[in-house]
């Protein structure tokens, strides 16, 4: 099992909230994280739920889809940043969403990953964000 170092600890101590409207994408992300020993503390299927779960669970990290019903990922980033200026949010995007990614980063997201995800890519980005 890959263990990533993070401020003297390792990524196994990182609690993640997964936000995506597709169960398929959440499942895939969860499997990637759990195979690296990372704890998934919660899942949300839209931006509104994401903000509620963030408040409730105080995760160390959020993976955030952009296009979702009820409230978009970008609006959720804004709301979460207003709750917690130090929130670590990674945007999950797909090709063709460059301008939306830029908007999300301006709103406070730290990084982005592009679908399709590979385990290496996801863990790399998480490592980078947790050490920043």
């Amino acid at each position, binding site marked *: 099992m890959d263990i990533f170092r993070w401020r003297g600890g390792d990524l196994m101590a990182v609690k993640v909230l997964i936000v995506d409207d*597709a*169960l398929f*994408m959440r499942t*895939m992300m969860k499997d*990637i994280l759990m195979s690296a020993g990372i704890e998934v503390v919660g899942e949300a*299927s839209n931006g509104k739920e994401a903000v509620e779960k963030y408040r409730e669970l105080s995760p160390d990290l959020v993976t955030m889809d952009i*296009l979702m019903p009820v409230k978009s990922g970008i609006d959720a980033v804004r709301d979460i940043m207003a709750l917690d200026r130090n929130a670590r949010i990674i945007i999950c995007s797909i090709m063709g969403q460059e301008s939306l990614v830029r908007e999300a980063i301006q709103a406070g997201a730290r990084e982005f990953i592009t679908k*399709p995800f590979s385990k290496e890519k996801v863990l790399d980005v998480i490592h980078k964000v947790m050490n920043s």
Partner: protein
Amino acid sequence: MDIEKYKDLFLSEAREYLRNMNSSILSLEKEPENRDILDSLFRHVHSLKGMSASMGYIEIQELSHRLESYMDSFRQGKKLLDENAIELLLRGVDSLSVLVEAVYSPLRKETDSSARTKIPSRGETTTLRVRASFLDELVDSVGELLVAQSRLESMLRLLSLPLHFSSGPDHSVQPQREEGSIEEAIDAVNRQIHLFHSKILSLRLAPLSTIADKYPRAIRDFVRQKGKQVDFLIEGGGVELDRRILEELDVPILHLLRNSVDHGIEPPEERIAAKKDNRGKVVLRARREREHVIIEVSDDGAGMDPEGLKAKAVSLGALSHEKASVLSREDALLLACIPGVSTARVVSESSGRGVGMDVVKSKIEALGGHLTIISSPGQGTSVSMIIPVSVSIVPVLLVTIPSYVFGLPLSRVEIILKEKEVESYTRNGDRHILYDGEMVPLKDLSVLLGLSADNISPQQGFHIVVCDVRGKRKALRVGQHLSHLTAYLRPLKLPLNKIPGLFGTTLLGDGRLIFILDPQGLFP
């Protein structure tokens, strides 16, 4: 990453998105300027793109991407969503469906998403997907538990141990003996098994919408093909039924809907001439009534002509003149379910109604349900399917004819009478009893089953069981009635399932296998 293991999840969720896309486009057809619908359509396509990219399904990803780009011009208000655009979007979704389904072919496995039940749990986002066959196994094993439990009860009875279930009036005066604890233990097991059983059955329930969501699209295309103008509505899509029953209902419902469009709804010019709205209306409506679900397909079309149906049935030799003259209006409409009669030119100048209604009727009856038709010429037709919510556990009444025991579903039994206390008459050569001010046709169960019944001793006496058969009373003459029990119904297999009047089998507590009869099949 092992992509294969995500295939099932991909397919079931992709199908969900495709259904949503279809219904969004149909809504856009009615409200082309509704931005919210357009956005949600875009999101569904986008989600499918993300999923297919993750699975490495490049074609699906590419086509989704193109659909997204095509939609962009409408989202930016550069173009108007006209009829051509709607058609193109629908074709796009059709092509996506073909690509998605091709994910599994040529090796399509049994566990596709239509055979899956998504079980909502309390948390909004937490859903658990369970293999459908696993649920079936659980239902089967709980059924076997019920049988084993009832055997245990009858063994205790053989040991002459008094059994007092629940709180019988003399329960409190029974001295507390060692056997008492056995009774209580069995009582507790009994309660638990029934609780367990009802919970498991409820897991297998799925809303009608799981099959009905695809109808609006299918009906839209059919309506266009037939050159009609029809508004189609679904009411009660949330009504739940056993998934096994739902699967069986898909074809009959679609058939009835197509009938309504094809043979019920008149062409626009005819409707205008008849001072009706030029757009016809077809409604699929479901509601729950105790242990039954009533699914109704109605239209405001041309209606059916019972006299025409009678005449056609008589000319085909399916009905005698005498019977035809006394046939009620409702029964006359059901003649449409006889092959040949259904295709008669009885509705309008153009065509008859209900090719294949016989198939619909037999399918519904095989599920333990029945069909009713209400129709008036010029006003429209409504076909109702009355179906049990779940079929595998049935309370039955045990009846005998000497040396045989049979079960009758309790839901069909109205009352049990002693023969000697009943007035009976012969009318037109058929025997009837007078019950509740009504002449009820009487048949001897042993004669219906071709068994001899002459050695019932007078002391035992005969009994009359009044049954409900498609909403009508019919009386069955039986020997004794024993008791009733909750039977775990084992479905019949070929060739026994072809015999009308046999519903299934069950095991009695003493290990005897008995047939459960279907009064509907006994009185065709």
